[in-house]
C-alpha cells in the first residue's frame, strides 16, 4: 500500500526528459503526480472498487425494479418465492407443532429466508430481514445514504477547514488566535458523545430557528454534525502548512506587487495546499462513513425506516442469532468501501507529495 517514498522521488521532469531522450520540459506537479499514481496498481484498483460501490448504490432503484422486484421498504411477511422450482416462505411462521404419533409438542421458531444468491432469480440475493424486506435492496439504498452523508460532510468539512485555515494563517494575530482556540475546543469535546446527544435531540423535532429549517428525519442532521466534529482535524494541519508558506518569498513578492488578501489566499496559498486538501478529502470520506455508521448504530444518525449501513447493522444486531446476514452484509459493505478509500488515499498522498505526512487521527 504505502510504497516507499524513495520509489517516487526520482520521478522528476529532468528524469522524464532523460528517459524520453528529449529536452527538459516543464511539467506540472499534477502531471508528475498522475505519472506516479498510474504505476500504483493497488491504489488504482482501490479507486475502481470504490467507484463500483458508488455506481452500484446509484443504480439501486434499477436493481430494485428489474432484479429484486421490490422496494427498500416493501415488506413481504406472507409472500412465497420460487427457489429451484420449490415454493419457499419468505418468513415462515413459528408456533408449536404437535407430533401426531408421540403427541410431543415442539416449538418452531420464526425463520427468515437466508441469502439465496442467484437461486431465486435475483430475489433475496442476500436474504430477507424479519419484515421480509430484501436485504440486497436495502443495503444498496442504505449505501446511497451512507455515501451521500460521507461525501457531502467531507466536502463541507474540508471547505470550512480550508477557509478557516486560510484566514488564520494569512491574517495571523487575533483571527489566528480565535480560530486556533476554536479548533482546540472542538478537539477537546468528547465528539462521539456530543454527536450522539445532538443527533438524538434533533431526531425528535428537527431544528427550526430563524431561516434554518431542518426536518427531523433529514440527512442534513448527521451531515452537519459530522462536518463540525471533524473540522479541527483537517483545519489544524492545514493552518500549520499555511503558516510556513506565509513566510516564503513568493508570498512576499505577491504582496509587494500589490495583491490583496483575497488574491494571495486564493491565487498563491490555495494552489500550494491543494494536494493536501485532496488527500484529506479522500481519507475523510472514509472516516465519515465510519462516524455515520457509529451515530446511526446508536440511534442518532439516519432514522429508520430510512436505511443506512449503520442503521442496518443496528437492526441486524437483535437478530444475529436467527439471521446473522442482517449484520454481516452491511458491515462488509462498510469495510469494503472504507478499505478501498483508505488505500486510494494513501496512494494519492504518495503520488502527490512523496514526502508529505498527511494523517487522519481517529
Amino acid at each position, binding site marked *: 500500500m504505502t510504497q516507499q517514498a524513495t520509489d517516487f522521488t526520482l520521478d522528476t521532469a529532468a528524469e522524464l526528459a532523460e528517459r524520453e531522450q528529449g529536452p527538459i520540459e516543464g511539467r506540472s506537479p499534477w502531471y508528475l503526480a498522475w505519472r506516479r499514481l498510474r504505476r500504483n496498481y493497488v491504489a488504482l484498483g482501490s479507486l475502481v472498487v470504490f467507484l463500483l460501490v458508488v455506481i452500484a448504490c446509484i443504480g439501486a432503484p434499477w436493481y430494485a425494479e428489474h432484479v429484486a422486484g421490490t422496494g427498500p421498504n416493501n415488506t413481504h411477511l406472507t409472500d412465497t418465492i420460487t427457489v429451484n422450482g420449490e415454493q419457499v416462505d419468505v418468513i415462515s411462521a413459528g408456533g408449536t407443532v404437535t407430533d401426531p404419533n408421540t403427541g410431543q409438542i415442539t416449538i418452531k421458531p420464526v425463520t427468515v429466508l437466508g441469502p439465496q444468491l442467484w437461486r431465486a432469480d435475483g430475489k433475496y440475493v442476500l436474504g430477507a430481514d424479519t419484515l421480509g424486506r430484501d436485504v440486497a435492496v436495502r443495503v444498496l439504498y442504505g449505501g446511497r445514504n451512507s455515501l451521500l452523508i460521507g461525501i457531502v460532510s467531507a466536502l463541507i468539512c474540508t471547505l470550512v477547514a480550508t477557509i478557516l485555515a486560510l484566514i488564520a494563517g494569512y491574517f495571523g494575530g487575533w483571527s489566528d488566535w480565535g480560530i486556533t482556540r476554536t479548533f482546540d475546543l472542538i478537539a477537546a469535546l468528547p465528539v462521539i458523545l456530543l454527536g450522539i446527544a445532538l443527533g438524538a435531540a434533533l431526531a425528535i423535532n428537527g431544528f427550526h430557528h430563524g431561516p434554518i429549517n431542518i426536518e427531523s428525519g433529514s440527512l442534513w442532521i448527521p451531515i452537519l454534525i459530522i462536518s463540525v466534529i471533524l473540522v479541527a482535524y483537517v483545519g489544524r494541519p492545514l493552518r500549520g502548512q499555511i503558516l510556513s508558506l506565509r513566510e516564503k518569498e513568493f508570498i512576499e513578492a505577491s504582496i509587494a506587487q500589490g495583491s490583496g488578501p483575497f488574491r494571495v489566499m486564493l491565487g498563491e496559498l490555495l494552489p500550494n495546499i491543494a494536494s493536501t486538501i485532496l488527500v484529506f478529502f479522500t481519507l475523510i470520506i472514509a472516516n465519515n462513513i465510519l462516524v455515520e*455508521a457509529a451515530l446511526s448504530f446508536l440511534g442518532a444518525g439516519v432514522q429508520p425506516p430510512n436505511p443506512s449501513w449503520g442503521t442496518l447493522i443496528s437492526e441486524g444486531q437483535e437478530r444475529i442469532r436467527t439471521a446473522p446476514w442482517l449484520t454481516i452484509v452491511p458491515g462488509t459493505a462498510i469495510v469494503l468501501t472504507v478499505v478501498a478509500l483508505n488505500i486510494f488515499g494513501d496512494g494519492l498522498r504518495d503520488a502527490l507529495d512523496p514526502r508529505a505526512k498527511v494523517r487522519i487521527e481517529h
Partner: protein
Amino acid sequence: MAAFIVRRSVGAILVLAAVSFITFAIFIVIPGGDPAERMAGKNATDENIANIRSTWGFDQPFYVQYGKMMQKVFSGDLISYTTQQNVIQEIKRGLPATISLAVGAAIIWLFFGVLVGVISAVTAGRWSDRGITILALIGISMPVFWLGILARYYLGPENAGIFPDGGYVPLTDNPAEWLYHMILPWFVLAVLFIGFYGRVLRSNILDSINEDYVRTAKAKGLHPRRVLLKHVLRNSMIPIVTLFALDFAGVIGGGAILTETVFDLQGVGQYAARSVRSLDLPPIMAVTLLGAFFIVFFNAIVDFVYAYLDPRIRPS
C-alpha cells in the same frame, strides 16, 4: 516552567468551562429538549408541567440554570431528570468497568501496535510487511461495534464457546471471571488502534532509519538490534507517546461508548448512551465534562513532557 504550568492550567479550566457551556447551550437551543414536558409524561396538564418547571428551576433564566447545574456537578448533588438518581453516584458505579476496559485495551494496543510497526518496518517491502499492512488497514477500516457484535456472537457460548456472552464482573468480586469477561472487549477495542499505531510507527521508523545518527551508530559497529532499539525506536516512539496519551484519554472519556454498549459492560459510556436516548441532560453534562477533563488533562501532560524532553519547543 512554573509559568508554563500555570498558563496551561488556566487554559484547561477555560476550555472545560466552554465545553460545559456548549453542552448546556445545545440542550437549550434544541426544541425537543424541554425537560419539564418529558418529565410530566404524556397526559400531563399545563399546571403539572408548570409545577415541574418551577420545582426544578426550568423557568429561570438560562444562565441561572447553568450556574446551578455547575454547582451541583461539583457538589455531587446532580440528579437525573428521568431516573431521579444521583448522576455522580451512577458514574462512580460505572467507572471501574470503563477503566478496566480502557487500561486493558491500551496495554494490548500499545504492545501489539509497536510489535506490528517494528516487524513491518524491519521487513519493509517483503510479504510479511505487505500482509501486515493490509491487515492493519482492514483493522482501521472496521466499525468497532460491528466487529464487537460478530465477535461476541461467533466466539460466544452459542458458537465457539470460548468467551462469555458480554457482561461485566468486578475485579474485586472474582479476578478470574473479570479477566474472562474483559479479554474480548479489550481486543475488539484495541484492533483499530493496533492498525493505526502500526502504520504510524512503520513510517516513523522508515523515516528515521535513514538519519545520520543511525548511520553513525551502525558505523561504530553496534549490533543491529541495539541500533534498532536504542537509536531508531526511541526516536520513532515520540509521536506514538503523544497519540497514546490522547487516545487513552479519549477512550476513558466516552470513546469506548460503542464497545461498552455492544458488550453490555455497564460502564460510563453505556450510561451516557442510555441517557442520550432519553435526552437526560444532567448525565450527559457530567459525562461530557469528565471526558473533556481527561482529554484536556492528558493534552497538558503531553505538552509538559514534550517541553521537558525537547528544549526547542519549551515556551519562552
